[in-house]
């Protein structure tokens, strides 16, 4: 079945690449509400990809797709983590917000100078 559906698998992985690119592009504007909407689907996609990769690991004819799936899983997991850490949690992290506020109006007189 897998052999016959290699074309479909390739198309699916192309779509995963597009989704990943889109998430990277939109990253700076993703909000907690956005994540509440697509976060669960993202997790389903990651676990489905993992299962699909596990199934295909023993099939020689699907070897070219294994590494690509591994990279996609790692990329989506990293994106998921970063969205949670920096788009959802960071705005609520008072210590971090206070530190970021300290970056406004810094005094650069002690900056090392080019010789």
């Amino acid at each position: 079945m897998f052999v016959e559906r290699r074309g479909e698998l390739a198309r699916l992985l192309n779509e995963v690449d597009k989704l990943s690119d889109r998430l990277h592009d939109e990253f700076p504007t993703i909000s907690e509400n956005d994540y509440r909407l697509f976060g669960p689907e993202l997790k389903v996609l990651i676990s489905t990809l993992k299962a699909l990769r596990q199934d295909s690991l023993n099939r020689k004819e699907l070897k070219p797709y294994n590494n690509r799936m591994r990279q996609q899983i790692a990329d989506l997991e990293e994106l998921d983590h970063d969205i949670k850490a920096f788009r959802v949690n960071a705005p609520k992290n008072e210590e971090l917000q206070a530190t970021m506020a300290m970056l406004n109006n810094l005094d650069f007189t002690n900056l090392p100078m080019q010789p």
Partner: protein
Amino acid sequence: MIQFVSVTSFRIRMAALLKVKRGVYAGVVSEICQAFKNATIEQIRQNRDMILMNNDAVVIKLRMPDKKQKLSKADGYRLIYLVMKQIPLVVLLDIYPKRGPSQQLDIEDNEINRLVMEFITELKAGKLTLHDIKDNLKEINKTKDAYTE
């Protein structure tokens, strides 16, 4: 002219990566230089992987390949840097590989907080180190190269 400075944590991390056996991470310096060499300050500021931002600064997690190990951006390095909006200043905060013996998968918001605070403290104390991006990150305001110590 864009100035590149680093905090102590960054230099410690670089030294550790370069000490890893068999030169696994020997390409890290050239990857950083390559990422910035011909970039304008606007290109450095406008990266899609901006993880934190405020009025005067942006913190970016740059995905870099490891050409020496034939690794793509996804599997290469993550460079954490801060870039100021009002002056052409880039602060190298941290770098970690996504693969190999020193692999790190993610970085947490509290760690970014610690690194930004380190920058503020070292700026006030005049302890930041200036680098030449066109000369393998050579430390300009030091006589000894930290990566060979």
